[in-house]
């Protein structure tokens, strides 16, 4: 098995949503101390509702007005921009020399990552908010038309499409021959990666926006029914579920024996991955919809501002208030932190 988007070429790279296909959200050696200064600030010109990704010294950020920005992180200036025909909520991902993202015009676009020019586009029946994921030369993504698509990563030609029971905003987790995804119909699905045939589905009590993480033989995901679920990746059987105070749009990140996830009740939760037992929870804002990422001894989450919490205790170690975002995810890269804000500002902090 190869997960092309999952492999970071360098410790500082961050090529897809929550860094890589493990959804671990980092786990590299990063400083736990508070950033001390803004190295540069970049104005995207529109709100940012997706997460930035980093690779080869270029930060790729989609802004809501449909512009994909390639930013040279050394100087904080634009290398190129690409204007998509519709709004963009999708986090980009990388595959070889391509950068992929979904658009509200119902298409997934592949661009040449050096030139910023379009290589192909793959149509669906409705907006694509999820991030495309690449496995063995195939791009997988869900659409609001309720279908999961598989397209050739080099040509964009469709290999198969399979309809589920609701809109899909969850980003697929691809591993081995299986795909895992949450759906607006409230079910967690496992599909055969080669055909799209459903292997199992497990109902929750409301729709799912959260993107799954897989660790061992467990699929971890949040639901709008307030629960975090751990289901057996082979059978879909619910191993455990943990109730939070409101719906969950955040996606889990796994580190060691802990799973971290935010809830709209304003708390960040640390749950023991094997049992679902609460290790700690910490209030970080009125609402948490973003996903956590893990640095060296800290877990970072954006909820109004950006918070770093001690991974063992949940105590807030530091907070940065300049990024007023509710949806984005910070990128931790060496001694740098990159943040995108609801107001469209992108910051490089050291």
């Amino acid at each position, binding site marked *: 098995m190869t997960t092309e988007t999952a492999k970071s070429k360098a410790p500082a790279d961050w090529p897809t949503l929550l860094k890589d296909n493990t959804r671990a959200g980092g786990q590299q050696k990063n400083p736990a101390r508070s950033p001390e200064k803004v190295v540069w600030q970049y104005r995207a010109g529109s*709100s940012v509702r997706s997460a930035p990704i980093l690779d080869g010294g270029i930060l790729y950020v989609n802004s809501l007005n449909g512009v994909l920005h390639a930013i040279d992180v050394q100087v904080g200036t634009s290398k190129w921009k690409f204007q998509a025909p519709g709004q963009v909520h999708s986090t980009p991902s990388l595959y070889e020399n391509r950068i992929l993202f979904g658009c509200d015009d119902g298409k997934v676009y592949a661009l040449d990552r050096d030139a910023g020019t379009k290589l192909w586009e793959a149509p669906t029946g409705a907006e694509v908010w999820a991030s495309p994921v690449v496995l063995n030369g195939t791009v997988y993504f869900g659409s609001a038309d309720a279908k999961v698509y598989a397209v050739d990563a080099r040509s964009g030609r469709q290999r198969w499409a399979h309809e589920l029971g609701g809109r899909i905003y969850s980003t697929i987790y691809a591993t081995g021959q299986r795909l895992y995804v949450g759906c607006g119909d409230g079910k967690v699905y496992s599909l055969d990666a080669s055909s799209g045939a459903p292997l199992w589905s497990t109902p929750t009590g*409301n729709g799912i*926006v959260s993107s799954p993480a897989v660790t061992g033989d467990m699929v971890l995901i949040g639901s*709008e*029914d307030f629960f975090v679920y751990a289901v057996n990746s082979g059978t879909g059987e619910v191993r455990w579920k943990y109730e939070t105070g*409101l719906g969950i*749009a955040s996606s889990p990140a796994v580190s060691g024996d802990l799973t971290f996830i935010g809830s*709209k009740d304003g708390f960040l939760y640390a749950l023991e991955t094997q049992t679902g037992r609460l290790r700690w929870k910490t209030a970080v804002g009125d609402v948490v919809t973003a996903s956590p990422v893990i640095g060296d001894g800290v877990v970072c989450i954006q909820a109004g501002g950006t918070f770093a919490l001690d991974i063992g205790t949940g105590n807030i170690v530091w907070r940065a208030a300049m990024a007023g975002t*509710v*949806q984005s995810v910070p990128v931790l890269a060496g001694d740098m932190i990159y943040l995108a804000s609801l107001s469209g500002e992108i910051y490089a902090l050291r």
Partner: protein
Amino acid sequence: MDRRTFVKGSCLGSATLLLHGLDPAMRADEAFPVTPSIELHGLPGHKSSPLGMPGLFPGRVVELRDPNAIVGNRVSQPIVRRMLQESMKELTGEESAHAAWAKFVEPHDIVGIKINPSGAPACCSSPEILREIIASVQSAGVSARNILVYDRYSFEMDIGSYQALLPPGVSVFGIQEAFAGSSGYEPNIYCEANFFGEWETRSYMASVVAHDVTKIINVPTMKDHSAAGVTGALKNLAYGTFNNVARTHRTPHSFTNPLIGMMCTVEPLRSKAVLHIMDGMRQVWHGGPLTQVQDFIDQPGMLLVATDPVAMDTIELEHIESKRREKGVPSLWKHDPSSITTNSNDFYHDATKNLFFRQPGHVAAAGKLGLGVADLKQIDHRKLSA
């Protein structure tokens, strides 16, 4: 006078009448600034509809409560389905919910569903109720692609996860991405007034309302409002259709009365808003419209249905006033300078504090403009039991 519907003269008269005729608390407030002239520019040549506010059943409000409709902050899909069906039959007198819905929407309609996500996630239009409304509209022959679920700010829609939770095929969107900007608004339909010396004195109507939809189903929530007293059917329509409205209140004063009602008279908004379904699963009795503090949010499991937004909001106002009396906190009508704070944290955690002198008189003021019935004695308030 150009082709625009220019109603400055009549509205000025109305505003003056309202300020001195309907709100006794305001009369005692000597320092309240004079209401400026308000100009309304509607869609030229628009023919008003008999379905428009106050609609087919002026003065009638159907109220249905079911304590099991919301348990542990979760709304029951099957229970709200039955509540909506029963309420619609009672409102219209029809034998079936299908026939009831057919009074308001036809297969060729493009139906806008105006939701209220502004208190998300603690108190906002419930996706469960929206799913039932969508299913009902589809049962009347409207295809999913002709159903638009919308509000002003897309980031608030995102917090509510409405995009993912509603059926495929339905459009779900915010008119504007953030607080700034005027794209998505019709430049020739607006309200103009200068309340506090602001640089932008116009509020424009959303293009989706002006041009795209043929009918609007309004889905407000049941909340107090720091500036307007309550936010219900009228405010959800007015301040969710026009942009640049926060400028109407500046501590401690608020011009939500008379602007809310006046905005609702502007065509084509008035004609297109044919049905109001108030989501009273949750009830915010202090801290609205944005509070996330659960101490001030009850869960009465209530649904109100009406074509008359004034009658609906009058009933809502009664419910919230009743709850505030029960909790021993000041009336929404009380204008006490010592209650005013500029500290939002104080406001959100102390039910005796407020940011503005609330203006619940905006509901009765809208009644004076012909939008519905504000006199409780004249309201046909039909309470159904679960």
